[in-house]
């Protein structure tokens, strides 16, 4: 649906994107993860055609670069900042963006009604956006991005600052869009969102993609071993070799086969009161690839 090749962009002496290759398949949700300053926003900016790349190419749906009107017709964007007119009502915002995106007058009422239902804002449609809660504004922000039925959607932190109810509603909405075949590029700092929603995840840093793949594959490649914490019910058997350090009644160790190792401990006479196995997840992968150093 969108193919990016050898994309580069610098601002003065700062290289924001340093030769990026990426292909997003039709109908998939691709997560773009990275610490602050990794180059995500610049990459998205170039993909939607508002930032001019220094070099490289972008093709949207076989229609050429995103600056062309046909390619733009395919795209929708929900920026991280709530890009709404606060002094207009929800329905006025939807009507305005629908008209500006080229929705025909014949379809306008139908699309606006659909978008209000999609965002769950039918009852508040006539109220000014200034009076909406954070969650309502986020839902409207997403609805404005899809009012013209784009086939390629860019979502930048679509759940920032919302309560769990609105977040669940947003997840449902995004899954509803995916079910209709919309291709989505999703940037977020919430790993659990990426794990839940994304078919594939690209982890970016310093303007490059460090790795790209299905979440399970990324964990397999970079997640490392599970961490096991066990509380001992009695002293270890005499002459037993502990698989890890013991502090008081706590035994901790790492393992690629945690359950098998726990069974073996039992068979060797270890008495465990309880235990906890922490499997590696996307956050583990993220930290492994991008490091723990604080970013600006």
């Amino acid at each position, binding site marked *: 649906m969108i193919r990016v090749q050898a994309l580069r962009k610098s601002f003065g002496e700062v290289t924001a994107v340093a030769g990026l290759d990426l292909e997003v398949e039709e109908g998939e949700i691709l997560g773009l993860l990275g610490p602050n300053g990794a180059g995500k926003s610049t990459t998205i900016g170039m993909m939607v055609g*508002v930032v001019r790349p220094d070099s490289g190419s972008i093709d949207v749906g076989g229609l050429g670069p995103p600056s062309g009107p046909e390619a733009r017709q395919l795209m929708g964007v929900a*920026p991280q900042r709530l*890009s709404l*007119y606060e002094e207009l009502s929800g329905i006025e915002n939807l009507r305005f963006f629908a008209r500006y995106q080229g929705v025909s007058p014949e379809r306008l009422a139908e699309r606006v009604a659909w978008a209000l239902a999609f965002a769950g804002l039918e009852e508040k449609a006539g109220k000014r956006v200034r009076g909406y809660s954070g969650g309502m504004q986020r839902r409207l922000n997403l609805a404005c991005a899809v009012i013209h039925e784009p086939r390629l959607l860019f979502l930048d932190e679509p759940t920032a600052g919302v309560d769990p109810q609105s977040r669940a509603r947003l997840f449902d909405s995004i899954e509803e869009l995916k079910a209709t075949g919309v291709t989505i590029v999703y940037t977020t700092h919430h790993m659990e969102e990426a794990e839940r929603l994304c078919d594939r995840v690209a982890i970016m840093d310093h303007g490059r993609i460090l790795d790209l793949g299905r979440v399970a594959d990324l964990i397999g490649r970079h997640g490392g071993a599970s961490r096991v914490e066990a509380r001992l019910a009695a002293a270890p058997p005499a002459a037993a070799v502990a698989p890890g350090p013991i502090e008081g009644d706590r035994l901790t160790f790492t393992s690629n086969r945690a359950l098998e190792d726990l069974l073996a401990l039992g068979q060797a006479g270890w008495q465990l009161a309880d235990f906890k196995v922490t499997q590696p997840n996307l956050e583990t992968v993220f930290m492994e690839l991008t490091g723990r150093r604080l970013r600006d």
Partner: protein
Amino acid sequence: MLRSIWILARKDLRLLGRDPMSLFFIAVFPVILGVAFGLMNEGFADEPEVAEAVLLVHDADASEVSRDFIAALDAQAAVAVKRVDSLDAGRQEVMKGRALGLFEIVPGFGESAGLVFAEKAPRVGLAIDPSRPAEGQLLRGAVMQGIGDLVARRSPLPGREGRALELVTIEAIALGHETADGAPVDRIRSGYDVSFPSAILWGVLGCIAGFAISIARERASGTFYRLSVAPQPRAAILLGKGLACALTAIAVVLFLTLIGCALGLELRSPFLFVLATLGIAWCFSGLMMALATISRSENAVAGAGWALNVTMSLIGGGMIPLAFMPAGMRTLSDFSPVKWGILALEGAIWRGFDLVDLLPALGVLILLGALGYLFGVRRLAAIDS
């Protein structure tokens, strides 16, 4: 593209309608200015009420001639004489702005004043408030008139004894026009004829300041980003603002003119008024476009808007009438669209312009507007790349 420009303009007009403070500065504040300046301009009306200039007099001569001279001065309509006991007291009053000038009658004045063949001319002293030099000239004229009257009394020409010296009779020449039924209109009918063109330009300046900042605000809120991704030319965003600004400027001109008419303003040429209004709308919406793209920052655009508006208004006669400016400033005012806007409106309202008279002002307004639009569109392309 035209459709998208109209969609954007309509949205901006709707947003303006929901912003009471902006509406106040665009529509209400200029009315207040227009009315206030109109009241100040009562002197242009048919029956002017002229405020008397206070002239302090210290009579160190204390002769019969000096007393007569002071009485003659006081009898003049433009001067109110107030005696002071000392020069120092008089100086203090003038410096504090309580009097326009201080006149000292030096001892010996009565011996020679009004005598054409006296050995020495009488001596007098005169001080004028430094901030009111133009009115000071009027005061000098009043003093000379008083001396002329003394000459008439003390050195009469044979056969003219007892008659005031009258070197010339000045009669008013009507600058006005005839109404549709042929009745002459001798003067500007109302002070509002003069004050409202300036007030209208203030309203238009309020317009451009408000619209210019709205682009930077859209950048800050993220709506500009969303609009930029839409399948419309980027220039449409700016042109939409331009159209909304131009329509608002037209509405402001019409609204303020209607208010002016209700107060007594007389519109002499509706056709030229329409041309002037369109020229002003084009010019100032173009300047708004240039201003809007001068920076990405809301504060920078607001600051630049304030500076530009004040400068344009200051040198263009929006604050101080051009007539009171020195020659250099009047030349500089040619570069201010405010001057040409005011002139175009005055031409349609009371100066009695025909189309040829209006063309220079209209030409400057169209040229400046075109430069503004060109700069804005080019700058918008450059600012985001």
